[in-house]
């Protein structure tokens, strides 16, 4: 029994690097995963290439407020008569970057402390998990608003605050995943050889956490976008003249009847990105479950097959 596990762990350890890539690649090959990745990818491309191809400056006044779409302004103009298309093309990259940053921070902090809590047990576990309990006693957005209200809507602060919101939830998931791994024979064996704890966590435990971590990263990235766009919508993002998908919805909603595209375009991009990310994450989770059950086919079987035409259609037309 022990030897069997030992060989398995060897195989896992040698394939560590490959695994981080293999899981999302496998997920991308499923129907659900591919559609999710394509949707999110298109929005990502718009966000990051947009600034280089935008026809006008996002800040210059070109027309009357809320002018309807025309050949020169394909999406019309916004509340101050600026080009909606140019603002949409410029208004996503920082939002996405901030979401990536907050996700990375939250995963590192939460994953690290969750692993440490499960591995060291005892006192460290108690302290970390009680902290987690208290942090989970705040509604996420309220916690971020509290911080923002005191320091001001600084970009670094929003990233740190959103990361802090993620950390306790990630810590819980990773702790419970680590608990049963740290009990396994091969971990005990390495411990007896006197290997340092952080090295054991990195080399023996981390490779086994690829699936839960990948799923968490996907979920947290989606959630980061939701919170950050929400904060921007409330007016706590970049300072006003700068374009931002979240804030565009807020500032242009008074002109909803005159030029609905000024609201619909940024809202649709946010919606598409979160839907795409979530769908892809769902595929990753399915593949991970399939791998656990010993067959990679389980992920793509049955229930997913009939659904796909529906996913994109309803949303893309928005």
């Amino acid at each position, binding site marked *: 029994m022990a030897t069997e596990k030992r060989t398995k762990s060897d195989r896992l350890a040698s394939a560590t690097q490959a695994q981080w890539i293999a899981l999302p690649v496998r997920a991308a090959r499923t129907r659900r995963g591919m559609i999710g990745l394509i949707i999110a990818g298109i929005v990502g491309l718009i966000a990051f290439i947009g600034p280089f191809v935008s026809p006008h400056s996002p800040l210059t006044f070109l027309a009357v407020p809320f002018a309807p779409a025309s050949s020169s302004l394909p999406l019309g103009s916004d509340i101050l008569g600026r080009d909606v298309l140019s603002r949409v093309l410029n208004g996503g990259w920082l939002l996405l970057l901030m979401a990536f940053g907050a996700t990375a921070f939250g995963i590192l902090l939460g994953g690290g402390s969750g692993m440490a809590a499960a591995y060291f047990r005892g006192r460290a576990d108690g302290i970390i998990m009680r902290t987690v*309990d*208290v942090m989970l*006693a*705040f*509604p*996420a*957005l*309220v916690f971020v*608003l*509290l*911080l*923002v*209200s*005191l*320091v*001001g809507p600084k970009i670094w602060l929003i990233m740190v605050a959103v990361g802090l919101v993620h950390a306790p939830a990630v810590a819980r998931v990773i702790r419970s995943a680590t608990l049963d791994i740290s009990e396994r024979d091969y971990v005990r064996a390495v411990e007896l050889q006197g290997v340092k704890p952080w090295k054991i966590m990195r080399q023996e435990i981390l490779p086994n956490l690829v699936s839960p971590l990948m799923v968490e990263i996907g979920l947290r990235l*989606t959630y980061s*976008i*939701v919170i950050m*766009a*929400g904060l921007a*919508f*409330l*007016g*706590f993002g970049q300072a006003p003249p700068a374009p931002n998908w*979240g804030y565009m*919805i807020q500032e242009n*909603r008074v002109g*909803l*009847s005159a030029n*609905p595209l000024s*609201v*619909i375009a940024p*809202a649709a991009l*946010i*919606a598409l990105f*979160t*839907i795409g*990310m*979530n*769908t892809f994450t*769902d595929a990753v989770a399915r593949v991970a479950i399939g791998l656990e059950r010993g067959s990679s086919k389980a992920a793509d079987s*049955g*229930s997913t097959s*009939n*659904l796909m035409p*529906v*996913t994109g259609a*309803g*949303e893309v037309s*928005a």
Partner: protein
Amino acid sequence: MSIEEIGVRGKAPDRDVGLSWMSRHPMVALLLRRGGIGVVTLVIVSIIVFAATEVLPGNAAYAVLGHTATPVRLHAMEVQLHLNEGLLAQYWSWFSGLITGHLGNSLVNSQSVWSLVEPRLINSGVLVATSGVIGILAGVLLGAYAALRRDKWFDHISSVVLLAITSLPEFVVAITLIIVFATVVTHLLPAVSIYPPGTYAWNDPKLLVLPVVTLVIVIIPYIMRMMRGAMIEALESDYVQMARLEGIKSWKIVLIHALPNAIAPTIQVIGLTVLYLAGGIVIVEDVFNFPGVGQGLVSAVSNRDIPVIQFMVFILAALYVVVNIITDVIALLASPRRRLVR
């Protein structure tokens, strides 16, 4: 009553009074413990809310005044916020205010904090209760229906729609509803829910419709998904198979045997939903200008009205803690096995 049980009961009077009372009522002990943890959490939360205004860079008086800060005004503001007193004294005066209801005045219009927050609490309460009840009922029923129609078209379509909805930010859902029902497509409903001063949410139910529908749409997927899973498990269980073999009518099996057993595991998710609502109202209320705690918090944050912020954040966190405890206890009550383990 078994012999062992009587034996345990017989022993009880030997112990000290508190313990024997608790051992006779394990649920009471559990309630006390969860309640105790809750109180401790609330105190810690109050310390964090208070400390956040104190420890973070930039003193609160400066945060309030911003660019208009002059040494004289800074000093006046420090006195108003009690920043010139010791840390402990400051915390104590705030904390005792929380208990006695003397929370000081808003920095913006010098109304008392409580008189500002009270009507908002009532309005938010109405909003959360209405959308909670509708959303939970609809989620449970739709989830059960999806389980009964497992792998039929309703189940397939709903699972995709649910995945899409769970990924949407609330304000996108809200704006979509506004576009469809209040501006671009039709004008059936008001786009904003502004109430005249002195009136409450129930005075004009029409204004409540869109905020409620938004929250209902956002919470349904979680409940529905959980309910579907639990219901499928219940339908496949031995007791339902047994009931089928006994020839009990299938609607009776669903209503009497499967549904109640499927609701028990769903309770945890229902609790999480109410928790979500405590934070979710912030954005939804802001979209519709609904005069509740969430919108109040946003405007207080924009104005840096620190006493109001502190109190509202504490109230929302307190609600969180209380709902958490209630859910835990209900979940334990609903499952005898876990009740005994603890």
